[in-house]
Structure formats: structure tokens, C-alpha cells
């Protein structure tokens, strides 16, 4: 029988639970808010939660000297930076076109 206490006895489980909660918060932000920039912030939070998982597994996993999880997290940070640049560029382009960043009003593919 697993309880919250035994879960937190292992440090890895604590980090994994924090990452899961952060992922859920980011997902809620991406699904609930109307502003496109807030949706991007939610996506960034989700990516960060995944990075926390990778680093935690690297730290408590069997072969930390192989650096697999660490490298994955570093490349993920680089890809997230590229994603943020392109995403915010798209938001600015859409704003120029439709004069709004409200996602509920973006319901047309053309013009």
C-alpha cells in the first residue's frame, strides 16, 4: 500500500510529484486562458516540468556518469528557447493581422 508518506520518503518521488503538479498547472494555463501569450507561458511551464523529471531521473538513476538525462535536459532547454522565439513571433504576426491576441476570437483560417 503506497501512501503519500512513503512516496515522499524517496526524494525522487517528491521531485516527480512536483513536476507532475507543475505540468498540470501549465496544461491548465494553456487550456484555460484566452490570451495567446499566456498559452505560450503554459507550454513553457510544461516543458520545464519535463526537464525537472529528466534531471531528477539523471540524479537518482543508475548511471549518472553517462550524462544521458542531463544532456536531454540541456537540448530540451535549447529547443524550448527556439520554440519561444518562434511562438512569440507568431503571436506578434497574428496581432498585427487581427489586432487581438484573444484565442476565442481567432476562428478563421483566412484573413
Amino acid at each position: 500500500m503506497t501512501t503519500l508518506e512513503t512516496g515522499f520518503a524517496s526524494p525522487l518521488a517528491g521531485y516527480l510529484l512536483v513536476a507532475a503538479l507543475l505540468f498540470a498547472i501549465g496544461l491548465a494555463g494553456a487550456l484555460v486562458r484566452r490570451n495567446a501569450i499566456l498559452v505560450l507561458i503554459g507550454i513553457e511551464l510544461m516543458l520545464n516540468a519535463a526537464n525537472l523529471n529528466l534531471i531528477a531521473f539523471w540524479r537518482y538513476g543508475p548511471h549518472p556518469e553517462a550524462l544521458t538525462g542531463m544532456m536531454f535536459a540541456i537540448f530540451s532547454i535549447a529547443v524550448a528557447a527556439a520554440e519561444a522565439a518562434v511562438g512569440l513571433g507568431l503571436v506578434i504576426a497574428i496581432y498585427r493581422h487581427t489586432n487581438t491576441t484573444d484565442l476565442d476570437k481567432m476562428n478563421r483560417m483566412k484573413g
Partner: protein
Amino acid sequence: MTPVFYLLAALTLAGGLAAVLLKHLVHCALAVTVAFAGLALLFLQLDAQFAGFAQILVYIGAVAILIVFAILLTRGSELPKDGVFSRTWFVGLVIAAGVFAVLGWAVLESVSAIPEQSAVPQVTVHDIGVALVGRYVLPLEIVALLLTAATIGAVIVAMHEKVRPK
């Protein structure tokens, strides 16, 4: 678990929650910066110094600034008239709660398979650099290409559209 972990986890989660819930976009940007800083400190707590400082450089130094720029360029500091939450906010909340329930259940169920405690890995920045130009040199080059393409693409996408004479 140490009190430092609980403190950093609370800071990170509070920053994330505030970023999602606050009304003003500028406040959200500040809150998400707090969440990024908390995550960087969690990385340092996990003995991943390089990833922690990369997190500070990339997220607090670049992504947070980009977000603030985007907010200022899109008049995001003005409050929308019909609320900040989407029409389908309840569905989104249910989906997020469901995802957290599944993830939390998976973590708590697999506690017995999780390694308990291990020695601090002795990894220096030198080791990471050698690995980056050795075993991981192809992903490194691909990421370099991706960053170049993303930078050029972002500039082209956000550039002023030229009015074509008809």
C-alpha cells in the same frame, strides 16, 4: 526530503499558479520568472549545476524578456473586457486535473521500483563539454542548425508585411 526542497517546490508551484491565475499579463510574466528561478534552484539542489545555470541564462535571461516584449508589443497590459478565462475553461480544468491524477497515481504506484538514495554524481562542466563534442556532437550540431533556423524564422514571421501594389 529536506526543508530546502519543500521551500523550493512551494516557490516554483506558487510561481506557476500565479502565472496561470493572475489577471494582468505583466504580473503573469513576473510570476513565471519566479517559477523559472525556482526550477533553476531545484536543478542546483539536484546537483545539476550546469543545467541550473543554463536554465537561469536561457529562461530568466531570454525567454522571460521575450515574453515581456511580446506583451508590450501586443498591448497585452490592457485588461480584456470579457474576462481572462476562455469560454471552455471548465473542460480545460477537468483535463488538467485528470492528467495530474494519472501522473500522480503513476508516481505513487511505482514508488517501490524507484531507487531510494544514491551518491552525489561527480560530474564537472569539463565532462559535459567533452560529452557534448564527443558522443553528443550530432545532436549539438542539429540544435545549432535549429536555433539558427528558428531565429531567422521568428524574424521573418514577425517582420512587417509589405503592402503589395495591386
